[in-house]
């Protein structure tokens, strides 16, 4: 057994996959060298592009590459014959490919080689990993998310913080009237850029970013075609040939219609062209293909990216050095076009971020999160991965929205909140648009304020919907309590608001600023109208919905009772507390069965209304009398009012959350407990715990100690009946006899329990006169 495993590992060790790192060194070296050469080629082509039009450039390069590839791949003689349809698909592939490459080269002319390399030379793997981490939320580990964020930051860094030498740029490369500015793409591009107000190298950055996304999509889409055609290399060769043919008419058109402004002989640029074709389009392609085979794809991507970024920065530093220009025989160009793109802090910053993100994103995934199931016999942890897959059932967005809307509109509470929310959002939208239109900062910030207030409404809405969900394993009593919690959070929210208003008012009290009352009155009156509308809507449901808390339903199904009363809440204000024999609890119950969630929302709207009123009053005072002090005083007053109005809500909800015994049945509970004690056979009560689960549902549990000859079932039914009368629907009665304590003390290995049981038996003995007699 052992020997076999041993030999197995030997096979693996000499195999192709698992190997010592030294075997890979030549490939890594090869990759680094050719990535450097590719960067060199791109710098060279940037210089060439100053002489040659981009379409011509692409045509020449593609044509050269096609010739090389025809010799190397022999696409016509090797492989299966292609059908007409396949030819068409290759043609389509070539068309899109050359379009993307045109964009890329155009970006190169705009941004310069360093930025182009930083933006465009990412492998598909990195881009896909970043996108899935950022946008799907299923990218995996936090490291990937970090990588994605850094990638985004790097692009933003180039876009925003890269202060390219714009003065020089403007004078040399100003789009209008320049010789590059002649093709259709260029025209469209400059129009777009002028419209958006970006400088054109920044426009180039945006374009390159979009192009690389396109390129990733294009590569992914062409995978199937390459399989059909018989290999990626054959497809590449054919596609290159076809795209050079596609570009030929355009290139020749440009050649004949426009005389070159820079007269350099073709011989002079021939050598650089061959160089670029070889380095950028042929050798790099083959080297990368080999390395992907030998190394893993992720590793190739990582090493390649790091190599080409570093060489880009390196070349960027030294490219315009006279010594280098001498070697690259580009003096002619140098004389004509001045140095335009320089390295800046932003580029270095982005370079570092790009390096980091491509490092992180190409790291192998640590494996998705599984839940620990247990340990194997060998002591290794076992994980369950299936769970996540089950949870990830995706629904279409439209379906989710439709269902959500249906749930919201099903029931009056959530419907009311929803309509008010819509109205509020509409008002906010109008305010924001008008603010932007008239360029009024006050209006815009007030709009944001409204948006912020809407968050409380959204929470209330969500809680109202959630409270109707069915009970689950985790929420064994159902989700009703969410409403209480939401009411509590809304209360805290209002406390925070009051606090902020208070501190702001204090600050203004000591140095009152000049307030610009322009348009303030109109806005606040409009806000007041909206809020008054809300107050009317909510207080209507408030008073009536509260009363409907316990209208007569069959009590056999406590859960359904509790679910259904929300549905018809406001309709049943003729509440029949038919089951409630205690008159004094009638009034109390009515005021406490109101929905805390709705109360929280109501208070929020009330606070807003008070705010609007305060603003109106202070505006009038300031405008008419010039009392600037009125504003902070009003604010102080409002803060105080908000705080006072919130205290009862906080108190009520906190008591429910703390499992306090229900306030409204406190007295009758004592009576009921006495009744239970008077039942025949009941000796004493333990752990009588009663609490309100929501404002309308009460739960309880009680331990009844009985004499040994009492019938348990009879006592259970009697006790249940007594508490049902009080409105406790969820009751658990544990009937304990002396035998139970003896069993328990025999069964438990826990010392505490034994001690407790001993105590209970003793207590029992003292209470039971018969047992004392027996001693």
């Amino acid at each position, binding site marked *: 057994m052992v020997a076999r495993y041993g030999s197995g590992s030997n096979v693996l060790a000499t195999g192709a996959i698992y190997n010592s790192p030294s075997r890979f060194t030549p490939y890594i070296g090869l990759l680094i060298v050719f990535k450097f050469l590719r960067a060199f080629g791109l710098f060279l082509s940037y210089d060439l592009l100053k002489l040659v039009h981009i379409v011509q450039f692409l045509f020449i390069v593609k044509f050269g590459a096609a010739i090389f590839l025809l010799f190397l791949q022999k696409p016509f003689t090797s492989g299966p014959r292609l059908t007409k349809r396949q030819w068409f698909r290759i043609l389509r592939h070539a068309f899109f490919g050359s379009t993307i490459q045109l964009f890329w080269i155009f970006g190169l002319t705009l941004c310069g080689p360093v930025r182009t390399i930083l933006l465009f030379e990412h492998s598909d793997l990195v881009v896909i990993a970043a996108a899935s981490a950022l946008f799907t939320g299923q990218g995996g580990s936090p490291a990937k998310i970090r990588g994605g964020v850094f990638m985004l930051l790097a692009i933003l860094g180039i876009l925003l913080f890269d202060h390219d030498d714009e003065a020089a740029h403007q004078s040399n490369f100003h789009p209008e009237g320049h010789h590059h500015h002649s093709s259709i793409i260029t025209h469209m591009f400059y129009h777009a850029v002028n419209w958006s107000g970006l400088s054109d190298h920044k426009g180039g950055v945006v374009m390159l970013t979009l192009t690389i996304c396109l390129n990733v999509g294009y590569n992914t889409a062409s995978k199937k075609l390459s399989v059909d055609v018989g290999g990626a290399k054959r497809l590449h060769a054919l596609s290159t040939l076809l795209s050079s043919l596609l570009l030929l008419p355009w290139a020749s058109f440009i050649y004949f219609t426009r005389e070159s402004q820079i007269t350099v002989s073709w011989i002079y640029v021939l050598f650089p062209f061959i160089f670029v074709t070889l380095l950028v389009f042929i050798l790099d392609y083959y080297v990368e293909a080999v390395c992907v085979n030998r190394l893993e794809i992720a590793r190739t991507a990582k090493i390649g990216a790091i190599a080409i970024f570093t060489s880009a920065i390196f070349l960027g530093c030294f490219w315009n050095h006279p010594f280098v220009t001498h070697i690259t025989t580009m003096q002619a160009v140098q004389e004509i076009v001045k140095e335009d793109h320089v390295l800046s802090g932003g580029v270095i910053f982005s370079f570092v971020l790009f390096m980091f993100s491509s490092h992180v994103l190409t790291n192998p995934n640590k494996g998705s999160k599984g839940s620990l199931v247990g340990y194997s016999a060998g002591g290794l942890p076992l994980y369950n991965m299936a769970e996540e897959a089950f949870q990830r059932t995706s629904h279409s967005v439209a379906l989710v929205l439709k269902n959500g809307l249906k749930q919201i509109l099903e029931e009056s509470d959530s419907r009311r909140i929803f309509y008010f929310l819509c109205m509020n959002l509409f008002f906010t939208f109008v305010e924001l648009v008008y603010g932007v239109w008239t360029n009024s900062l006050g209006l815009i*910030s007030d709009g944001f304020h409204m948006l912020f207030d809407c968050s409380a409404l959204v929470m209330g809405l969500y809680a109202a919907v959630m409270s109707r969900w069915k009970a689950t394993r985790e929420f064994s009593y159902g989700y009703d309590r969410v409403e209480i919690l939401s009411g509590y959070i809304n209360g805290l*929210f209002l406390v925070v608001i009051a606090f902020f208003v208070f501190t702001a008012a204090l600050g203004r009290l000591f140095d009152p600023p000049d307030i610009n009352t322009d348009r303030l009155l109109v806005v606040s009156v409009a806000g007041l109208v909206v809020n008054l509308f809300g107050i009317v809507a909510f207080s209507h449901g408030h008073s009536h919905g509260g009363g409907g808390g316990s209208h007569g339903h069959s009590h056999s199904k406590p859960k359904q009772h509790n679910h259904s009363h929300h549905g018809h809440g406001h309709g049943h204000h003729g509440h029949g507390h038919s089951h409630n024999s205690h008159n004094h609890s009638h009034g109390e119950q009515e005021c406490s069965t109101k929905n805390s969630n709705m109360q929280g929302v109501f208070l929020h709207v009330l606070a807003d209304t008070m705010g609007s009123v305060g603003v109106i009053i202070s505006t009038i005072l300031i405008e008419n009398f010039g009392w600037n002090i009125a504003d902070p005083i009003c604010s102080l007053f409002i803060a105080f009012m908000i705080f006072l109005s919130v205290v009862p809500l906080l108190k009520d909800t906190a008591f429910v959350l703390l499992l306090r015994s229900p306030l409204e049945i406190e007295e009758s509970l004592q009576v009921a407990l006495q009744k239970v004690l008077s039942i025949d056979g009941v000796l004493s009560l333990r752990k009588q*715990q009663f609490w309100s689960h929501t404002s309308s549902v009460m739960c309880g549990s009680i331990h009844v100690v009985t004499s040994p000859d009492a019938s348990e079932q009879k006592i259970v039914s009697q006790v249940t009946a007594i508490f049902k009368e009080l409105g406790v629907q969820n009751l658990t009665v544990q009937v304990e006899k002396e035998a139970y304590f003896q069993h328990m003390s025999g*069964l438990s290995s826990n010392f505490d329990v034994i001690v407790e*049981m001993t105590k209970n038996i003793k207590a029992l003995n003292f209470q039971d006169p018969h047992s004392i007699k027996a001693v």
Partner: protein
Amino acid sequence: MVAKEMDFLMAEPKARRIIAYAAVNIVCVFILLLWCHSTNSMALTAYSYLAIFDLLRLLTALITLWVQKQGPSSVFSFGYERFEVLAVFSSTMLAQLGSFFIIKESVERMIQQPDVHEGRLLLGALVAFLVHIFMTYSVENKAFNHVVEASSSSWLQEHVADISEGFCKVVPGLSRLLLPRINPFALIAFAGATALFVTYVLIDMYNYQAADTWAAMCISVMTFGTMFPMAVYSGMILLQTTPTYVIGQLDKCLREASTLDGVLEFRNEHFWTLSFGKLAGSLHVRIRRDAQEQLVLAHVSSRLSNIVSDLTVQVFKDDWTRPTAYQIIHNSPFHSESSLSTIGVTPPVKLPLGSETSSMVPPGIQPFTPYKSGQYYTSTPMVPQGTSAAIYGSNPPSAFNKTDFATDSLTPIQTPQSGNMAGVIPGKNSVRLQQGYRTPDPKTGGLNSESVTLYAPGTQR
């Protein structure tokens, strides 16, 4: 009433210390808020809210101290422990709402960036940082410590753990310091201070005023992220939910209990977290008509008592009004007479020691005599022999097995009555999920003074 409680608390040196710290904290907060006003810096405001949060944390610690002195009352029948949960929830929620407010203000500032005076910025950051770190590490805050350990990691913690994992590959010695996760409060303090420092540099060197707003956003988002898991954890307790990690365990216990003789089904299973690491629950058990209620009740309770400390079980039968043969036996005069005679024994120690007890228990530990298993069940004439054999024949109760005694780490203790080693207490209490957290106070737990003396002087407490 509050004054009385305060007097009560002031007697405790710990509480006095906390109140002194709180006074220091209030002064610092006041100074910080003044500086915020004078610098007009949003980032500093966001950061000094952490100091306000510290104040809330101190308050929570105070509540913990107070709660520990309280027992269940008629109004709060479950005891006052939920006050801690509510305190934690409120303070984390307030911190989140505060940071939410800051985000909103920052958005408004982005439209119109006011000038920030960087003069006191660094000083303010330093003061807030020191206050926060001091309050985090100097005060023993049981409730927050528990929540920090038990709640899931915030995204900030996750990222830092991920980075430090890579870091620890290079310097393995740091793993003790950085892994598995850092205290979130310390983390937010460091992260916020860093953000403020960067802001200072940017404003000082480049006069880049918008950095302040961005830093405020960053700090608020980080605060929000830090507080969120804790609020969720305590909020779930307030919502009376079953923690997901005990569901499996509970299921196992219930399955075990459902195989007991006579048990037909369970209904209305409600198990929920009462306070940090303490479960309460109620359960309805339907049993066969001829089964014995008290026996089933005892078995079900003992199965679940390891997990659920506050349990109520209602045993019910269908159609119970019709008497069964078993009930006739149960209610016979002979039976009740005999059971009464066993009740008569007041101190349980006096029960005669069964002959087979010594063979049941592992050597070295003398059993706590009155309640030892075999002896009890053989000596009581409670159950007709045939029935008891039927009940125990199918699955013997686990407490009687030797292995149970051997696996639990048991500490023998002395009883004053017999003088020899008697009884066992589990050294590691598996009921409380958080080890070392709040075992019930001898007074509040309802143990009388006599039973307290059962603890040997050398054991815990």
